[in-house]
């Protein structure tokens, strides 16, 4: 007599699982492993099995009987469905458990349901021992990524805004070190400090940095100006004593409540010892709720000065980071960053134009490089130029000087808004880059005709131009001229191809990835660039009008007769690399380091590593096509 009961029950579960994909194809050992560890639970109709609030899922579920509904919750739309019913044999959550992040869906039993579950460790082990299961999960994620890309960004940007957390601790809201003075400070010097630093409130502290009093701008009129207060007297005589403070651990909600209750616009934030650590203003709290695509746009369009645009630029970054954190696809994200940055640039130019007389000049502001391709990440230098015509040739030089003066202001204003000045001086204020259509054509034509290494490098920046502001037709005409010129010159294309093949996908023969000395891969140089360069060549060859890599790949694939699924796979690969770049920058930004496109594949989770490998394979495919086309 032996106790065979567990074996029999495992056998029963095995038989059940085998009726469904992918378990029907699963290796026998792996299936037994799964059935041995699968534990059966019951979920009454209406009960929640898993939700984003539960954090990282601890179990992988397989429905045995009943019906479970996946409901989109959370701010970002990741999938194309809002609800999805799942029945026997279907499993969840694949993406969340693989990536070890909270689920984006809530899973609710809509009928009384019996559901198997296995622990996350067993799930990972199953992925390891079963290639079939691994493939199943990877393909599922890939399809999710795919779906996520097809979403329109406006909806989720809108929803993301509503989620702007008022639960943020005040300690995180403080943007700068507090400005404070001692009680005996002469009022005049305290006020001068306020004016110099453009701050709305001055805090008076004792020797232990504990707040004694506060003076705000609105106090100045009644307390200082009208009573003709002697500015030589100590500041403490005009401050509000015993100012309201909140601990750094209090939330934005608490602060909003406190401000509303006491009708104050500033609150002092103190640490556990009661020492001043910063000032939170009403505006800081509002800015938490300001971050939606539409609202940022509106604030950009309504901005009257560079300060307002600077805060909008900060908002753009903040929203981008939130969206990344919410797991948004790279394409929407970059397009949305691009859309907002475009709006910002336009507004900066509008403001500059108002200060300059450009009467009689027809011009267009051009973006080059990644901005031209709509592929800006969060840390992108300026790359811009101008194209202009004027009705009176005699006045051309004078016009150009006026344009350059305007461009200088725009370049500086862009720099003030967080787009660093270009080290290589690829900027509209550079006289070399403020040209008439004929001059641009001459320049481009020279590069095409004499493609030395510098010319090829230039082509890789300038040929991705796009009109941001001004006369669109100037750009369109230059584009169609360029396409004609490059299309007819296969020697130039060939050299571009040679250049593009310089960089190889970092795939190893033995190991998964070829990494640099520090164990990292440069995702720009050895990743995105491979796609960008190839797409540019295909676009020139087929006369595609687009300046963006994805659009170029799509447009040229149609003309070159490349099957749609093939180009879609390549585009997926590009997006994934872009997403990893953004994510790396995201994390870096949190640590206050510059985004530098480097990632260590060892630090990726298993799934991301696998997809990255596949993305590089797609780049290799793309290069193989270049080789074939130009017989290299």
């Amino acid at each position, binding site marked *: *007599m032996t*106790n*065979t*009961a*567990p074996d*029999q*029950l*495992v*056998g*029963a*579960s095995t*038989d*059940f699982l085998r009726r469904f994909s992918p378990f029907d194809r699963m290796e026998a050992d792996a299936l037994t492993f799964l*059935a*041995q560890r*699968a*534990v*059966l*639970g*019951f*979920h*009454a109709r209406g*009960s929640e099995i898993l939700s984003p609030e539960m954090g990282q899922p601890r179990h992988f579920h397989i429905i045995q*009987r*009943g019906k479970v509904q996946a409901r989109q919750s959370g701010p970002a739309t990741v999938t194309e469905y809002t609800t999805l019913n799942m029945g026997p044999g279907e499993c969840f959550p694949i993406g969340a458990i693989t990536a070890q992040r909270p689920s984006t869906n809530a899973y609710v039993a809509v009928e*009384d349901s*019996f559901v198997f*579950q296995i622990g996350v460790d067993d799930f990972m082990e199953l992925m390891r021992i079963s290639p079939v299961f691994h493939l199943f999960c990877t393909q599922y994620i890939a399809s999710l990524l795919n779906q996520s890309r097809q979403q329109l960004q406006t909806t989720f940007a809108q929803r993301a805004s509503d989620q702007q957390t008022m639960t943020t601790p005040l300690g995180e809201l403080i943007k700068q070190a507090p400005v404070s003075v001692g009680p005996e400070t002469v009022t005049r010097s305290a006020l001068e400090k306020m004016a110099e630093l453009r701050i709305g409130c001055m805090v008076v502290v004792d020797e232990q940095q504990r707040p004694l009093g506060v003076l705000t701008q609105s106090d100045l009129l009644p307390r200082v100006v009208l009573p003709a207060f002697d500015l030589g007297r100590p500041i403490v005589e005009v401050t509000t004593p015993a100012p309201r403070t909140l601990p750094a651990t209090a939330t934005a909600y608490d602060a909003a409540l406190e401000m509303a209750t006491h009708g104050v616009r500033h609150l002092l934030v103190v640490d556990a010892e009661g020492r001043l650590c910063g000032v939170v203003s009403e505006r800081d709290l509002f800015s938490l709720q300001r971050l939606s695509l539409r609202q940022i746009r509106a604030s950009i369009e309504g901005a009257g000065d560079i300060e307002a645009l600077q805060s909008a630029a900060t908002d753009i970054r903040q929203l981008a980071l939130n969206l990344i954190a919410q797991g948004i696809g790279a394409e929407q994200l970059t397009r949305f960053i691009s859309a907002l940055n475009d709006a910002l640039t336009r507004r900066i130019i509008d403001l500059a134009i108002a200060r300059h007389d450009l009467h009689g000049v027809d011009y267009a502001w051009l973006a080059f490089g990644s901005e031209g391709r709509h592929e800006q990440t969060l840390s992108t230098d300026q790359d811009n130029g101008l194209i202009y015509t004027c009705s009176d040739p005699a006045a051309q030089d004078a016009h150009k000087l006026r344009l350059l003066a305007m461009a200088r202001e725009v370049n500086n204003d862009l720099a003030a808004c967080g787009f660093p000045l270009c080290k290589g001086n690829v900027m509209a204020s550079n006289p070399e880059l403020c040209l008439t259509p004929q001059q641009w054509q001459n320049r481009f034509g020279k590069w095409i005709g004499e493609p030395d290494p510098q010319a090829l490098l230039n082509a890789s920046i300038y040929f991705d131009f796009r009109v941001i502001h001004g006369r669109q037709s100037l750009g369109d005409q230059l584009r169609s001229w360029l396409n004609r010129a490059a299309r007819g010159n296969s020697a130039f294309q060939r050299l571009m191809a040679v250049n593009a093949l310089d960089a190889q996908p970092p795939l190893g023969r033995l190991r998964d990835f070829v990494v640099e000395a520090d164990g990292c891969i440069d995702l720009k140089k050895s990743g995105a660039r491979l796609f960008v360069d190839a797409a540019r060549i295909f676009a020139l060859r087929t006369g595609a009008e687009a300046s963006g890599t994805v659009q170029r790949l799509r447009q040229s694939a149609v003309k070159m007769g490349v099957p749609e699924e093939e180009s879609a796979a390549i585009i997926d690969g590009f997006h994934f690399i872009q997403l990893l770049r953004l994510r790396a920058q995201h994390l870096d930004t949190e640590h206050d380091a510059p985004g530098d496109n480097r990632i260590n594949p060892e630090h990726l989770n298993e799934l991301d590593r696998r997809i990255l490998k596949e993305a590089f394979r797609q780049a290799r495919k793309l290069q193989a096509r270049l080789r074939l086309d130009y017989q290299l």
Partner: protein
Amino acid sequence: MSTWLNRLRPGRDQPGQRAALQRWQALPAAELGRAHFDTRYVVINTEATGLDPERDRLLAVAAIAIDGGLIRAQESYYASLADDPGAALAGLLEFAGKAPLVVFGAGFNRRLLERAWQTHLGGVPETIWLDLFWLLPAVFRPGLDGPTRLAQWMKIFDIETFQRHHALGDAWAIAQLLLALLARAPRLGAGTARALADLERSRRQFTTPA
């Protein structure tokens, strides 16, 4: 299970099996006032030569534990009484521990088992029994023409099993019914084993089964 087998093998005689009963009696009593997800239940099912508990003989016993509201395949027991009924019954007792025992049809299962325990272990463990025959209608309230037999309940919940009329096969189905019951019963205020026992008692008093 090999430990208990080895322990029991030398003494297949009555005293050895009586020791099994004594060991069981020495276990701490089950806490009947805890929530279902905090309670270990053991579903027990039998296979006999027929359907008459007085005359028919026990052929095999099976048990499946439900712990934390979950069924684990590893937490199950099956033994035929053909070779060594004493060891099979002692093993069942050891597997069950002091957990509330859940059957479908106590009139049959419980009587058969208690008689067998008496014969082979020299005593009957005093434990709490829950009968799904009474509890399922009490919790799911199917109405007067509602199901009474196991097959009918399985159909309602769309429950399948790998082998009907087999001690473990039916236990697997009964265990799934118990899962559903444990999830639903708290809504009726029956959130503990003791409350289920009370519910069953009142159901027995006020209902005459068809």
